[in-house]
């Protein structure tokens, strides 16, 4: 079932979305945006649409199937955008039988609307009292009104102020807004439509129907078994979270430090997962926290301050890096404060951290000054002129301060793997339809596509093929509603992929092969490329900033040396 909400008339309509049969998650959101949004549209204008969609497995209770996708034309990159998020909402929308909610047009008046969806349907409510509130306060007010069991996605003041790095914050299973549809500024699109929040209440729903429940359960078991036996998903992630990568990437010389001027950070251990885990133990925080229903990997965490008060949650590798190593800060408590501020104001932590790194390069503050960084993020919350510049992202800040080293692709900040030391991810940054995005080519399906790691991360050979296949497989996984981290188990345990294929088939009565599902992944990329071409963003834009090819990165002193013409072959499939 699809809902369409027209913000100009506040009319809500409902249809079965026959033209979007067989699609879910990113495949669905990208198809809707490419079919219904003029690529030339202004991202904050009446022609852009914001879509919320569920994955193929949403609501089924399958392991780690709690993710959903948001889609729109991005105000940050000007490209199509799919922003994938965990938390409690994907499952509830799935249980409600909702495949998509499409928000159209612009409202006539300047107020705050809430879209509330339940078994009774979708209603638009005006709640002007939410205007100007940040995310934690918004969630608290909405929970007072609608109860603590609903799932909430909402924007903070950054979204209301239509800042290009604004995210949409979603509540986790305990009702804390610790999960973000972070990248690409979709919070600004939501703000442009005066949609302050979306709420899902699945009370009274039954289990979703299955074409073949027994086969579905059999597939479920295969995936669960793989996740519970693979050392990454059963031990590493639950114990240490994603932040354990800080030490590893620093050791590999690929942890971008002080605005991408070095690949190794001397303070890495202070901000890494080992320290995060020890701090959680000491203060009564928590690692091994599940962010979404059915999650059995449990990589999230709850971080408490020195007094034992909950400060923030979902403190991820990318955030510890961007608000840590990339600005030279080696104090986890400062990082946690910044993470909380970003989650509250509603800006993407990756974009914010990289932006601060660029600003520090431009002399706005000194590298390593965590307290100054905290104050700068508060400027974003106050929407001062400086705050608006920072909230506009790394590229805008780089231009404003005349900085030469600005790590962005298609206007979006490069995440936590330096492409000079980890070249495979560099190919993905350069070519993905999303602007620089590490999750667009995660470590999936090396076995099924025979692209195992015969590549040396410091050498150019083989990287383009690797990135191509990873991007295709990722586009499929992003369409299922599964968490990308199932990929770690899929990589080594073939039954895990069998289980995913069997679940998708048994849910809908399909008879597709793994190859068919990868074809879906390819089609996603074709849809997205076509939209971007229409928006004037083509192969010429598929490259990294010049400095990556010119400035050697210590300690390996390598540059990004994959020829542009090779990058242009990524989408030859």
């Amino acid at each position, binding site marked *: 079932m699809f809902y369409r909400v027209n913000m100009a008339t506040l009319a809500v309509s409902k249809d079965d979305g026959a033209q979007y049969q067989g699609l879910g998650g990113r495949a669905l959101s990208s198809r809707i945006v490419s079919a219904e949004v003029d690529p030339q549209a202004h991202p904050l204008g009446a022609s852009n649409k914001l879509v919320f969609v569920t994955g193929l497995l949403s609501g089924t209770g399958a392991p780690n199937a709690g993710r959903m996708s948001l889609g729109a034309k991005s105000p940050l990159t000007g490209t199509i955008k799919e922003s994938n998020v965990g938390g409690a909402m994907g499952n509830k929308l799935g249980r409600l039988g909702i495949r998509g909610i499409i928000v159209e047009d612009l409202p006539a008046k300047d107020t705050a609307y809430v879209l509330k969806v339940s078994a009774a349907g979708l209603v638009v409510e005006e709640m002007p009292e939410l205007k100007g509130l940040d995310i934690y306060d918004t969630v608290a007010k909405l929970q007072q009104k609608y109860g603590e069991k609903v799932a909430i996605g909402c924007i903070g003041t950054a979204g209301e102020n239509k800042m290009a790095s604004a995210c949409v914050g979603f509540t986790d299973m305990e009702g804390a807004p610790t999960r973000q549809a972070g990248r690409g500024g979709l919070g600004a699109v939501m703000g442009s439509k005066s949609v302050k929040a979306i709420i899902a209440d699945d009370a009274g729903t039954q289990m979703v129907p299955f074409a073949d429940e027994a086969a579905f359960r059999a597939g479920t078991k295969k995936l669960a078994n793989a996740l519970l036996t693979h050392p990454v998903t059963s031990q590493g992630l639950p114990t240490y979270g994603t932040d354990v990568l800080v030490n590893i990437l620093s050791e590999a010389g690929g942890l971008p430090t002080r605005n991408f001027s070095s690949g190794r950070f001397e303070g890495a251990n202070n901000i890494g997962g080992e320290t995060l885990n020890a701090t959680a133990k000491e203060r009564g925080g928590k690692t091994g926290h599940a962010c979404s229903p059915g999650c059995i990997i449990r990589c999230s965490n709850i971080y408490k301050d020195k007094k034992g008060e909950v400060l923030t949650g979902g403190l991820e590798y990318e955030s510890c890096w961007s608000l840590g190593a990339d600005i030279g800060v080696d104090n986890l408590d400062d990082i946690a404060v910044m993470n909380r501020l970003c989650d509250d104001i509603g800006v993407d932590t990756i974009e914010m951290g990289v932006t601060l790194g660029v600003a520090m390069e431009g002399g706005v503050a000194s590298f390593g000054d965590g307290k100054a960084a905290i104050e700068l993020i508060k400027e974003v919350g106050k929407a001062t002129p400086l705050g608006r510049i920072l909230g506009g992202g790394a590229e805008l800040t780089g231009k404003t301060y005349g900085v030469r080293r600005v790590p962005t692709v298609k206007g979006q900040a490069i995440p936590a793997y330096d492409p000079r030391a980890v070249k495979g991810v560099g190919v993905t940054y350069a070519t993905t339809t999303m602007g620089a995005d590490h999750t667009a080519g995660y*470590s999936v399906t090396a076995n099924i596509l025979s692209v195992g*790691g015969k590549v*040396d991360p410091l050498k150019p050979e083989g990287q383009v093929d690797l990135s191509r296949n990873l991007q295709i497989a990722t586009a499929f996984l992003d369409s299922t509603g599964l968490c990308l981290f199932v990929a770690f188990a899929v990589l080594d345990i073939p039954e895990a992929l069998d289980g995913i294929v069997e679940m998708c088939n048994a849910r809908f009565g399909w008879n597709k092969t793994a190859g068919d599902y990868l074809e879906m992944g390819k089609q996603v990329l074709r849809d997205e490329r076509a939209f971007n071409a229409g928006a004037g963003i083509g192969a010429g834009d598929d490259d990294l900033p010049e400095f990556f090819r010119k400035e050697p990165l210590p300690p390996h002193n390598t540059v990004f040396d994959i020829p542009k013409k090779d990058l242009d072959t990524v989408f030859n499939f």
Partner: protein
Amino acid sequence: MSGTIELRAFMGLADTFRERGWGNPRQLSLDGPTSGCELLAKLDIPVEQVEGIFINGKVSLPPVAVVNPGDRVALAPPGIPGPYRVLLGFKRKLPGEGE
């Protein structure tokens, strides 16, 4: 040619180092070139607890790693997430394929 290496341990192995009262990093003297497996035996760490050995920032697998005095070395156990497993070259063997 003897000398010392600077040795780090990550994730659960960092706990092992702490429990044993070792520094992290730990300075360790070697008599000369040492294989990854010899190094782990010397440290009394089972080889299955180490997925990759970083030597001066480059990943080797324990059976093929060679550590020389003066190297910066780090031990990474199985279970570390992230694209690194393909992108950094940990994942070398495909199912049904030899080393």
